[in-house]
């Protein structure tokens, strides 16, 4: 393997598993370093998935039961509705025998932060986001200028609600809707081109005194706190650097946490 052009020429074949082992290894290593190629492979994989879906077929009834036996934590409830038209419901799984049981304590050790990082929005580019309104140790002049701009914004005599509403009304800004899976809960944020952001509204119920809502940006680089919102979030300012990936709000212990410990209550869809 030699050169970036040679690697690029293989990206389609790589996405179809049509390269040899040496090429596969070289490309995999390259993808860890090259966002453009990673994005191209992601697009190829979506096409491959579309092709693969053309072969969809009803899985055998007993297959899920066999899988459940190997999970190590007892039988699972069988899926009661098929993913495909005509797929018969699966029968309940047999009782596990000889399965390795992992304690709940052990299971809870799985780091949620890593999982959250891995499920960042598919179309997003890995970005760097800053935490809070002003970060003290900026080294980049452009970032400093952005911060000054943002500081100037928040230094205006208008209330934060007014500023947020103005931002919301400006078509140059991006409005981000967050919603729960059920659609019962929602929140709205707006982000200016310079990175100033406002949580404008939410339907989240007030939390107990020892709890707080926390806003996160989730990307391939991980989940980064954008700020603690309090137990009954009103309009709140935050700041991001770079394009937004996924925004999420979790309920955490009072004072906030460095990485999310709970599943998001609402997330943005893009």
């Amino acid at each position, binding site marked *: 393997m030699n050169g970036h052009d040679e690697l690029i*020429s*293989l*990206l*389609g*074949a790589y*996405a*179809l*598993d*049509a*390269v*040899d082992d040496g090429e596969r290894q070289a490309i995999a290593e390259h993808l860890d370093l090259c966002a453009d190629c*990673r994005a191209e*492979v*992601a*697009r*190829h*994989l*979506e*096409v*491959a*998935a*579309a092709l*693969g*879906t*053309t*072969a*969809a*077929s009803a*899985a*055998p009834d007993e*297959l*899920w039961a*066999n*899988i459940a036996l*190997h999970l190590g934590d007892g039988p699972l*409830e069988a*899926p*009661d509705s*098929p*993913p495909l038209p005509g797929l018969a419901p699966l029968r309940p799984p047999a009782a596990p025998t000889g399965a390795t049981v*992992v304690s*709940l304590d052990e*299971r*809870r050790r799985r*780091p*949620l932060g*890593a*999982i*959250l990082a*891995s*499920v*960042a*929005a598919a179309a*997003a580019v*890995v970005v760097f986001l800053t935490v809070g309104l002003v970060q003290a140790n900026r080294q980049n002049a452009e970032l400093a200028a952005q911060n000054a701009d943002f500081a100037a914004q928040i230094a205006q005599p208008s209330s934060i609600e007014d500023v947020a509403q103005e931002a919301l009304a400006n078509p140059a800004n991006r409005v981000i809707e967050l919603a729960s*899976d*059920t659609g019962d809960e929602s929140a709205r944020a707006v982000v200016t081109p310079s990175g100033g952001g406002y949580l404008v509204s939410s339907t989240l119920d007030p939390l107990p005194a020892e709890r707080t809502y926390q806003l996160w940006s989730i990307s*391939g680089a991980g989940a980064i706190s954008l700020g603690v919102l309090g137990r009954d979030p009103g309009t709140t300012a935050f700041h991001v650097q770079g394009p937004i990936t996924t925004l999420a709000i979790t309920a955490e212990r009072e004072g906030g946490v460095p990485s999310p410990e709970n*599943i998001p209550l609402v*997330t943005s869809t893009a």
Partner: protein
Amino acid sequence: MDHRTASDVNLVIAVGRYDQAALTEVYRRHGGAIFGLALRLLRDRSLAEDVVQTVIIGFWDHPDRFDAERGALRSYLLAQTHGRSVDLIRAESARHRREERAGRNDLRRGDYDLEREVVDLAAAEHVKDILGTLPDGERQAIELAYFGGHTYKEVAVALDQPEGTVKSRIRSGLRRMQTELTQAGTEAPS
């Protein structure tokens, strides 16, 4: 969390918390696609079931390996399925080659009636349509590589084309399909 209405992203997060019901839902949504692809590639139900089991349990053990930046959950699971199936195909092919000590090229044009199989799948009509609009060289290269489980070098031999041409056709064909799928709003279901 209501698993039935949860997004794939939240199911992945829940699997990360060892939520078994979340895995059940993942299987309910994507198990048929995974099994169908494995069966299509391997043409052996038992081997296909083994692949499905490996993929689902692998996802249960390592949900963090799913990176949504690189595609949707279904795409990830199908990619895992394809990769494992191809490994089996190539291992089996190598075994046969050794046993038969045959130097013959058993991948000849026309051995794979893949287009007809795709056509038979009504649920994938649109994808099939788009595949059918590709120039023959691109379509054949993609079909042989993806559904035949062959490397681009093997495809080049089968189609009697330079390897560089096959690489290029696979890539350009996938790009063309991606454009068409995006315009039609028919990207891989998530």
